[in-house]
């Protein structure tokens, strides 16, 4: 599974990345997590960061930041 966390690097984006890592660990899924900071690639998905892309699909974007349980649910739905 391929997970991308979109965001130029603010506190919310870092939190989203941590949650994605934690979610993958707790779900026991084999996944590659990339932090995307390149504006071109971010814009190809959404203009509201932070964003969560799973297997090429935009699963979440913008505020409010979802809790860990929601991130787990979003990742699991693509597993």
């Amino acid at each position, binding site marked *: 599974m391929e997970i991308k966390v979109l965001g130029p690097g*603010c506190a919310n984006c870092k939190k989203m990345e941590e949650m994605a890592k934690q979610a993958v660990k707790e779900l026991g899924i084999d996944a590659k997590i990339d932090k995307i900071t390149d504006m071109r690639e971010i*814009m190809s998905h959404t*203009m*509201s960061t932070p964003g969560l892309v799973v297997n090429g699909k935009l699963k979440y974007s*913008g505020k409010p930041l979802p809790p860990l349980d929601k991130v787990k649910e979003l990742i699991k739905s693509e597993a």
Partner: protein
Amino acid sequence: MLKDFAAHMTYSVIGLARGTALGDALEFFIYDTIKIFILLAVIIYAVSIIRSFFPPERTKAILSNKKEFIGNILAALLGVVTPFCSCSAVPLFIGFIESGVPLGVTFSFLISSPMVNEVALVLLWGMFGWKVAGIYMVTGLLVAIVVGMVIGKLKLEKWVEEHVYTMQIGQTGDIAAMSWKDRFEHAKWNTVDILKKVWLYVVIAIGIGGFIHGYVPEDFLVKYAGPDNPFAVPLAVLLGVPLYSNAAGVIPIVYALMNKGLALGTVLAFMMSVTALSLPEIIILRKVLKVPLLAVFVGIMTVAIIAVGYLFNAIL
């Protein structure tokens, strides 16, 4: 009922004597803390529900190809209700410009959003009354509208970085419609998230109001930055630029300054400058704006905020 609870806690549970300075201070502190947190929770929750109807994609669609003036007014208002993380300023800017939102209208949005928000308004309301909150909201919107219009009139599109115009935007329109359950859920996350971020600042601000008030000589600041000093407003604005904080973080400082006798206009100008003009934001915007446009933006904002400060010092 809240007052009774605060009195009960202070005099019966903690056991301070009635009529003492410490007892009064603690009673005020407990009462104000509970009042402001209830107010914050209710308003943030309500605003979050409203915000769920205005995702950035929708706001972008509303503003694209709008005429200036009407567009600036709409943009400033939408800035208040569109949820976006400060790190989204650059992608939002690109997205707006790409879909035909005029440059000045885009600025009105970007200016009003961090400056006028529910947290700032609730805190101003809770601590200084609804009039001050109302004044802050109206002038904040006016600054956003006027500065956006001036930038639009100056025709500065040539100073937007070229890559903004060549960016390919993904299909952002496919955000699934939210159900009411989703909206309530988002509002809950948002309320918890914001309260977690601001509670400490709020407690400090109320603490300043309850305990420090009256212990520091008032004439110190008044002497240097009081209503009689014509340089107080520009000084407050310049001091605010390198400081970077959200509205909640600046409230304790604002509260202390006002208690120490600074004029309301000076304090509001300081708060606007901290929230709307900040070095990190300027650095972020450099990714999409060339230096001359950035300088024009900072210059006009500074002038507008200073004007607001003088205006209120003159009429209040």
